[in-house]
């Protein structure tokens, strides 16, 4: 039992890092423009398909496709921003939610129409095998995914704190009006945040595919996980997102050890409601 728990906890920590990376894009968009993208999970799902097809046709390992998918997704983010998000920033909250829900329904069903419900997994992957640390077996693919996640988060943190553009993004997030008085083009910042958030999804998707399959229904699960993390993190910055991801990963590990793996979403959800109940501004929020 102890060994199983240990093994699950290690898995949970690794998955927690990946969860955090998936939620990071959403958290960035939410922080900067105060909009929750309901289609976030569907974006992840589509990116995973993209990874699958690119890897298949170019015959390259899935992990390498991140170099192609991230820039494609950055552009995709800009396009979605121009077509949809730009029109709804600052309007009725209900209209904002409804518009991205429309996007969610659209993407999910387009994926169903294009690829049916059949799950797809990578054919080419170099990240195979595992390392054994005492009683714990760590798959190389998950380990790499976790390391890349933490690396990407550190990179984003550095970008936000050490570059002019990053500082402008943070200023926009703190106080939109003050930022625009300082001569920052707020709409440009919004587009940038949206594009960056999507690029991060692209990176995450490539590494998730090294150990998971994708089907059109995966979107909802990824969406749910990301929403929970954003609620948990509040406006707590990159570190808040990472910590929340780790908490979620470990809660899942405990649940799998002591109950039924099929119920893990239910346990995560209870956590979500509990946090809204006791700490509605998140565990790590500044405000």
């Amino acid at each position, binding site marked *: 039992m102890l060994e199983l728990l240990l093994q699950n906890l290690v898995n949970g920590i690794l998955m927690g890092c990946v969860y955090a990376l998936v939620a990071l894009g959403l958290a960035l968009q939410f922080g900067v423009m105060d909009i929750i993208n309901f289609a976030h999970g569907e974006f992840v799902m589509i990116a995973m398909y993209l990874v699958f097809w690119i890897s298949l046709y170019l015959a390259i390992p899935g992990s390498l496709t991140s170099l192609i998918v991230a820039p494609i997704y950055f552009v995709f983010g800009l396009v979605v921003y121009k077509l949809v998000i730009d029109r709804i920033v600052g*309007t009725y909250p209900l209209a904002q939610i409804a518009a991205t829900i*429309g996007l969610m329904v659209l993407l999910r069903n387009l994926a169903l129409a294009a690829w049916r419900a059949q799950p797809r997994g990578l054919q080419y992957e170099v990240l195979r095998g595992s390392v054994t640390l005492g009683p714990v077996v760590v798959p190389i693919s998950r380990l790499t995914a976790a390391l890349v996640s933490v690396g990407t988060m550190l990179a984003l943190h550095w970008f936000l704190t050490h570059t002019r553009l990053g500082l402008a993004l943070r200023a926009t997030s703190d106080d939109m009006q003050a930022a625009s008085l300082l001569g920052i083009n707020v709409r440009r910042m919004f587009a940038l945040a949206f594009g960056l958030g999507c690029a991060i999804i692209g990176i995450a998707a490539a590494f998730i595919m090294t150990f998971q399959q994708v089907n059109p229904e995966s979107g909802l699960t990824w969406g749910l996980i990301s929403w929970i993390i954003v609620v948990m993190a509040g406006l707590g910055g990159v570190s808040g997102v990472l910590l929340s991801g780790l908490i979620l990963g470990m809660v899942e590990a405990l649940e799998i050890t002591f109950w039924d793996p099929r119920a893990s979403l239910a346990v995560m959800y209870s956590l979500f409601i509990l946090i809204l109940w006791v700490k509605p501004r998140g565990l790590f929020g500044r405000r």
Partner: protein
Amino acid sequence: MRASDLKPIVALTAMLAALPLAVRMNNYYVLLLTWILYYSTLVTAWNVIGGLAGQLDLAAASYIGLGAYTMGTLLTRLDVTPWVGIPLGGLVAAGFAALVGYPTFRFGLKEAWYALATISSVVVLQKLFLVWEGVGGPEERYLPARYGELYYLRFRGYAPYYYILLAVLVMVLLLNVKIRRSKTGYYLLAIRENEEAAEILGIDVRKYKLRALLIYAFVTGCIGGIFALISGYLHPHHFDTWTSLQVAILGIVGGAGVGSIYSLPATTFIIYSISELLRSTLGGWIPGIHLIFYGVILTVVVLLKPEGLSETYERLYGRIRAALLRRRAGGG
């Protein structure tokens, strides 16, 4: 309630009651009409929370599933008649709604959290009922096939259910009209328009949102019980996120809370028919074409006509009336 409020309900009821006869009780059409009526009742109930209170609730399928399982489990295990099981299902749904609504309706919390909490609840309940072998489980649980007995409310054709749903629709419409004209109705509208301003006018925002939610969840739970009777079995896939989304989409596109309440059944009728047409003609080549259609229409309507289609109907209705009057005047 005023007489002018009742007139359209009577007219609508008469029209809807005649429809199955108009299609000569053809099984396919009666089934289609039954589903249209089913969604109409759901959307009209949703108006209380989505239209009046302005809260984007996406948990319809949670309440439907809970209502279905409560009624069905009582019926199969304890032989409790649906006449009792259906309202009990409504109560269970309302209880669950309170659990989700109480924390998320805290004053000043972001609107999006409620939408997130509600749509997630559907996924979660589905998984829980899969795991909970005692009541749910992955196998279908069939309801007793005691057709034609009033105690069991089970029928072979769809027409009886059509008329049951029609009765429910009338009740839900009346409920909406009654709430809209009451203090609660005005308070909900104020909350929808601006929560902060509503508070200082003496409105306990959380209390009134919860009240709207409980009414809506109870009604939807009852409809869920009826749904189980129609489908004839219980299964965790009755917790279907798609149903939730569809109800909200029909509500938004129909302009819930903006114009007349009748634009909701009207929108349901039009959109459901179009989507069914798409499914039966193009669905073979493009599976899910009818669902894509919902996504497109929602996004387009929200971006171009955020207030929904109700105004469009009203203008159309006005124009038709004007044309009729002109003709009558010309003729006379």
